[in-house]
């Protein structure tokens, strides 16, 4: 297959082969992305660009390729969500409270990528502390979706919280990016930017060095332009890590090798409870079409039941804020991060630093979390939410008795306008209605672009797999990808030469 003339339009797989095959040097490829990033600042996809580091890494990669010691991702420029701590490079979680924080350590996942030869282009914008579904809560201003509706100049959100990574991947500002997903933060932005986003099984990737939002739900994953690229990248992000007690020691298979195995004989579950009142008809239609594509490829489509799925969103909005309220207690202005001037005493220092350092959505969730853990409310909220989690996990276990992978819509709709939902938290939270269930059960799931909305905006489908069965999720996603033949890309309205 012919390579795209613009190297920034390479897939990760294409670039890998081109760089190792010396069709293009890592430095050339890196420079093309550095230019693209600089020309796309209007999208605000990056909080911190690291062009010098990128070029230095690219030069080293070219030397290794010349010397015959290329590593699996040698010379491939990636973007990293600004939730992954990067040694010597400012890491902010898109929060004022960490606006000047430079970690003296590297997260396990990003270290794995650099060890595999990848090149870091910079740190991508996101919702503050990964709390949001539109990337509008960032202290560093919102990210703008490269996509626009047909015949419209209205700025749309890229989804969130990994909105910067999604915009960077769909806007050809990197080959691929890392994201994190606590309730849908990889899959939802991937779906509304026409890209692929994979949330692995909880424990598949180490959380060490990733700034915590909700520890029992957070999971890092790849955001790419193709399913194959997600398979490649996940293979180099995943590892068991003795520094993360919740990482799991399950061998990382060669996801790419099994990618084209098809779905013949596979049973695809369609959860009847996901037919929600008020879902856009085009979402339901796309879902049916997805099922049909898989059936045509030889899969058997069966109805399954997830009776407790309707409780997932409320349970999530108890568990995640509860953990966040505790995880974010360390940002107190004492040891690092923003410290308010003029404090009278220690309590005043805490209150001022945190009030100034955290944005409204983060403050809201800290308050919710503090409330649900309080004496007298714990049993009514947190304890019940944990019971629901158990029931939801059991629902999935039951469903997987009769199917191998579950197909659902990824989001309730396409990208929406900036500001459209920011005044109504609940309508914002509803963006995660199809995705949070998966985090509560700790399962792997992928969002794959499957079509365009009537307004010409990307829509995605979600595939949910059994724990540590990312391989089946990926090969099913590959079948969807081929059937959907999604080849649309956003118009580069932002590009500055």
């Amino acid at each position: 297959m012919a390579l795209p003339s613009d190297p920034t339009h390479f897939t990760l797989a294409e670039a890998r082969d081109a760089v190792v095959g010396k069709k293009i040097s890592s430095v050339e490829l890196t420079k093309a992305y550095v230019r693209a990033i600089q020309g796309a600042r209007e999208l605000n996809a990056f909080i911190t660009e690291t062009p010098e580091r990128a070029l230095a890494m690219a030069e080293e990669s070219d030397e290794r390729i010349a010397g015959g010691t290329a590593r699996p991702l040698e010379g491939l420029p990636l973007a990293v969500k600004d939730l992954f701590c990067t040694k010597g490079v400012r890491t902010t979680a898109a929060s004022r409270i960490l606006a000047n924080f430079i970690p003296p350590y590297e997260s396990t996942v990003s270290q794995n990528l650099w060890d595999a030869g990848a090149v870091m282009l910079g740190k991508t914008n996101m919702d503050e502390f990964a709390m949001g579904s539109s990337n509008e809560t960032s202290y560093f201003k919102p990210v703008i979706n490269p996509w626009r509706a047909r015949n419209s100049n209205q700025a749309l959100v890229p989804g969130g919280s990994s909105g910067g990574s999604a915009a960077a991947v769909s806007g050809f500002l990197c080959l691929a990016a890392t994201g994190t997903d606590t309730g849908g933060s990889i899959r939802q932005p991937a779906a509304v930017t026409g890209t692929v986003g994979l949330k692995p099984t909880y424990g598949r990737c180490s959380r060490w060095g990733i700034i915590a939002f909700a520890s029992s739900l957070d999971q890092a994953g790849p955001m790419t332009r193709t399913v194959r690229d997600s398979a490649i990248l996940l293979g180099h992000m995943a590892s068991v890590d003795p520094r993360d007690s919740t990482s799991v020691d399950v061998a990382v298979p060669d996801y790419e090798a099994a990618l084209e195995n098809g779905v013949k004989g596979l049973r695809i579950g369609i959860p009847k409870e996901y037919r929600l009142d008020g879902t856009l008809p085009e979402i339901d239609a796309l879902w049916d079409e997805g099922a049909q594509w898989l059936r045509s490829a030889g899969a058997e489509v069966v109805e399954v039941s997830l009776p407790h799925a309707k409780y997932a969103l409320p349970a999530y909005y108890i568990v995640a804020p509860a953990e966040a309220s505790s995880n974010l207690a360390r940002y107190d202005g004492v040891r690092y991060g923003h410290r308010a001037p003029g404090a009278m005493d220690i309590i005043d220092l805490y209150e001022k630093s945190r009030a100034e350092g955290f944005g409204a959505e983060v403050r809201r969730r800290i308050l919710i979390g503090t409330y649900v853990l309080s004496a007298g409310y714990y049993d009514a909220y947190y304890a019940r939410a944990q019971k629901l989690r158990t029931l939801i996990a059991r629902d999935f276990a039951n469903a997987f008795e009769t199917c191998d992978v579950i197909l659902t819509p990824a989001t309730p709709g396409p990208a929406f306008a900036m500001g459209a939902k920011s005044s109504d938290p609940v309508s914002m939270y509803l963006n995660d209605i199809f995705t949070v269930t998966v985090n509560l059960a700790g399962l792997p799931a992928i969002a794959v672009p499957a079509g365009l909305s009537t307004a010409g905006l990307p829509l995605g489908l979600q595939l949910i797999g059994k724990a540590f069965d990312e391989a089946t999720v990926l090969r099913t996603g590959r079948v969807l990808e081929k059937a959907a033949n999604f080849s649309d890309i956003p118009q580069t309205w932002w590009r500055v030469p």
Partner: protein
Amino acid sequence: MSEGASKLIAGSTGPWEVVIGMEVHAQVQSQSKLFSGAATEFGAEPNEQVSFVDAAMPGMLPVINRYCVEQAVRTGLGLKARINRVSVFDRKNYFYPDLPAGYQISQYKNPIVGEGEVIIDLSGGESKQVGIERLHLEQDAGKSLHDQHPDHSHVDLNRAGVALMEIVTKPDMRSSEEAAAFLRKLRAIVRYLGTCDGNMEEGSMRADVNVSVRKPGAPLGTRCEIKNVNSMRFIAQAVEFEARRQIDILESGGAIKQETRLFDSRAGETRSMRSKEEAHDYRYFPDPDLLPLEFDQAFIDGIAAQLPELPDEKKARFVKDYGISAYDAGVLVAERELADYYEALADGAEPKLAVNWLNNEILGRLNRDGLSIADCPVSAGANGAILAMIADGTISGKIAKDVLDIVWGEGGDPRRVVEERGLRQVTDTSAIKRAVDAVIAANPEKVEEVKAKPKLIGWFVGQVMKETGGKANPKTVNDVLRTHLGISEIG
């Protein structure tokens, strides 16, 4: 129960009973912290022993230190307690500058160790059982320093994250003596086990004491928790002050307010710190960064197999095997090093002679020099040699003390000291006879007296000893004197 009767406290409305429970924080003896690899040694420069985890840097995660878990299980077994094969770490949330994460990792609902018991030894040879409610693992906090800067506080995180065992008793103690005896016994047990050094001055063992009073037979009264009781002596003081304070309030018609009080060791009193209403809402919940702590029976059995002999068993064995009194055995086993020293000493000597020698000579000198048994300048082996020389008549008991003084100050082998300095006891009867003859010849009037009062023979023995420079065998001197003076053996 008659046992408790003498412990009642007299009040104007009749006798009162004090009820005491304790929460003891014992620092786990380990090279590194509970959830990080940072060192735990006491006395390092501020903030030298702080990992990124301890400082709660963004994205850092705790990883349980297996050795600390073993130490907790070991302690649980030493307390004859139930070991819970599944336990859970929870977060205790509150803001404080020396608590970097804004929460302490502790165990709330599911501790690693459940109910157990400790036998405490009381005066008069009595003993009593104190119930253990639970033992759980938790992190220590750092230290705020308020004296480093005129208007800033400094924080030292060296201690932050160090493993503590919180040991909670049942409200089973009824006097300050029992409270102090409990703490002493607990300290002995953890020191035997090697799970805590028990050093109260350095803060590696700290006690919070819960005190309430009631009329005998009445239900439990409202309790106050006394914090910061950091020596054995203060325990007794704090309990006595607090019991009296509560009795005075109740007898003057007042009510006890449940509160946390601080013991002021200078003033010897307790002061209100915070009331129940001001208590924090710690918002405990299971730490999502840590899986439940699980281990199998084999893990417990492996630790149990390595358990040393503990004070109670050792005491019983000393009484049985060495024939020494329960009191003496109790003194010896209070410190493992002392018990070990005694065993080494009693190995080659008569056990009762050994215990007296240890109590009267060794401990006296250690006390005088401010040394512990571990620093004793004369080894058990050397002392054994001295005792052996007494036993075989090489030296007298009195000379033995001189020999001990010499080797205590100068070192050296006691046998060589005796040889080189000519301290060997004179058992040569002819030399003793000469001395006896000389004394008898010089004191004719005493010779007359001793015939009427045979007990005066002691005076003659003294004179002969003086004559021989103390080296004569006292028994031989006695025998020769009796023959020469014509006094028969008494009783």
